């Protein structure tokens, strides 16, 4: 059991924490394009480059699509790569997200979660990454700036693991985390560098009949990114799904290893359960909102209400077993969605939690609260109301409205 290392405390906002973590992770290539509220990440990184603080090539591409492309191309050349985006930028990269996961390139990307247009909105909600949940990327959402920093360093190890080989998104709420200053405990440079280690490459069979490390290397030629007809395409997709399954195992392992060094746990790495052991009513949410909810849960508990919270830290792969276990005694669940799925009868997280609980015989009432769209603030009172609604459901044994909008002016 490793001992916790001495860590320096720096005042960093979410974006700065991302850049700092990337600086310490021996990244080879960063290709990025600025977009609010991620701009501080690229600016900070440029500062590091200008002062010779990183041994990293920084490419200012002409669009996000090219940014992810350049990262992918660099990754399959053998480099460790990182990029960042948000909202419309992530949407522009959409095509390439699938290509990146299909090419099994472990690119790490920080997303300063921001609402999608139209109308234009620069503030934080989770619609940008939710819409990419089918893309084959691992998705980890942070609650605090500290967790942003910790998750970034873990992300390289998770993605590069030979049983995983998937790209990773680390989500931090736009402005709420990206621009909020916190005291962040940072690992010493050498400890962080040692933790991320040297990137290992899988071995692949090439057209010369040789089994070689997967990279573009004139000494060992191989062709990547072919066209796969219906006779083979499905098999590749099955492989990606297997990688996601393996990630469910690897993410907690990496999280635990990191916790031994840092002294910080976020649940088991997949889920962060708060006061759920004997909870009767609970909310489920992602990201920084959990902080606000925890305050309300504490207040309710002091009043004798058996309230709890399940924060989903790893959204992809979806920790199905963990969610079932965490909510096993809960009788009414409010899933909070900071995004929408138009026409889908509820938000994306709501869909997923309901699906997870379907097979549980005595499953709880599950209702949906759409909140915080376009960066609208959610207050302690509003969250209290949600718990109040859950209590009412248990009393009346009826769900009046399965889907509600927090703070919507009717």
């Amino acid at each position, binding site marked *: 059991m490793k001992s916790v290392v001495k860590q320096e405390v720096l005042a960093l906002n979410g974006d700065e924490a991302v850049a700092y973590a990337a600086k310490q992770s021996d990244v080879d290539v960063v290709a990025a394009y600025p977009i609010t509220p991620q701009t501080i990440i690229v600016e900070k990184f440029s500062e590091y480059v200008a002062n010779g603080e990183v041994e990293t090539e920084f490419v200012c591409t002409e669009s996000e699509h090219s940014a992810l492309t350049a990262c992918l191309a660099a990754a*399959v050349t053998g480099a460790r790569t990182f990029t960042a985006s948000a909202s419309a930028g992530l949407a522009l990269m959409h095509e390439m997200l699938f290509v990146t996961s*299909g*090419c*099994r*390139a472990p690119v790490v990307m920080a997303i300063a979660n921001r609402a999608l247009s139209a109308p234009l909105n620069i503030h934080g909600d989770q619609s940008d990454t939710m819409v990419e949940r089918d893309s084959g990327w691992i998705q980890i959402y942070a609650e605090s700036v500290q967790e942003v920093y910790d998750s970034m360093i873990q992300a390289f190890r998770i993605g590069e693991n030979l049983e995983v*080989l998937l790209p990773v998104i680390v989500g931090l709420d736009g402005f709420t985390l990206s621009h909020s200053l916190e005291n962040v405990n940072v690992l010493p440079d050498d400890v962080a560098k040692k933790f991320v280690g040297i990137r290992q490459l*899988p*071995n*692949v*069979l*090439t*057209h*010369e*009949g040789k089994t070689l490390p*997967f990279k573009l290397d004139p000494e060992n030629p*191989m*062709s*990547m*990114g*072919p066209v*796969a007809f219906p*006779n*083979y395409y*499905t*098999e*590749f997709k*099955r*492989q990606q799904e*297997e*990688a996601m399954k393996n990630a469910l195992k690897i993410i907690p392992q990496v999280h635990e290893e990191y916790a031994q060094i840092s002294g910080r746990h976020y649940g088991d790495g997949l889920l962060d359960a708060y006061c759920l052991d004997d909870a009767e009513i609970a909310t489920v949410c992602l990201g920084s909102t959990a902080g606000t909810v925890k305050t309300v849960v504490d207040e309710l508990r002091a009043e004798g209400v058996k309230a709890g919270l399940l924060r989903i830290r790893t959204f992809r792969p979806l920790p199905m077993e963990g969610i079932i276990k965490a909510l096993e005694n809960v009788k009414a669940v409010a899933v909070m969605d900071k995004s929408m799925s138009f026409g889908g009868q509820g938000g994306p997280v709501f869909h997923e939690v309901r699906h997870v609980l379907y097979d549980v015989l005595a499953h709880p009432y599950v209702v949906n609260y759409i909140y915080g769209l376009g960066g609208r603030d959610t207050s302690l009172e509003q969250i209290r109301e949600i718990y109040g609604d859950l209590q009412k459901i248990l009393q009346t044994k009826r769900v009046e409205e399965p889907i509600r909008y927090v703070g919507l002016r009717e």
Partner: protein
Amino acid sequence: MTTKEKSWKEISPAGVCWKSSTQFFTGDWKTYTPIRDPEKCTRCLLCVLFCPDGAIHWQKEKGDIEFDLNFCKGCGICANECPTKAIEMKMV
């Protein structure tokens, strides 16, 4: 020419190709085949350079041109470009 297709567990990740296309004969596409008159041929090698399929080879040891009909699609570029009209395209 079909081989049994591999399972998802057998293939390498990321879709790296594991067969050279030289194992895929496209020669059966042709409806015309090139016939070269070695007397008229000046070994200018234009046919070797222009063939889209690399199906014409300059055999250094033999000092002569050879057609690899396994890959010739019968397009007729060689016959069309030959300065001495040494190649004729005959129906297969």
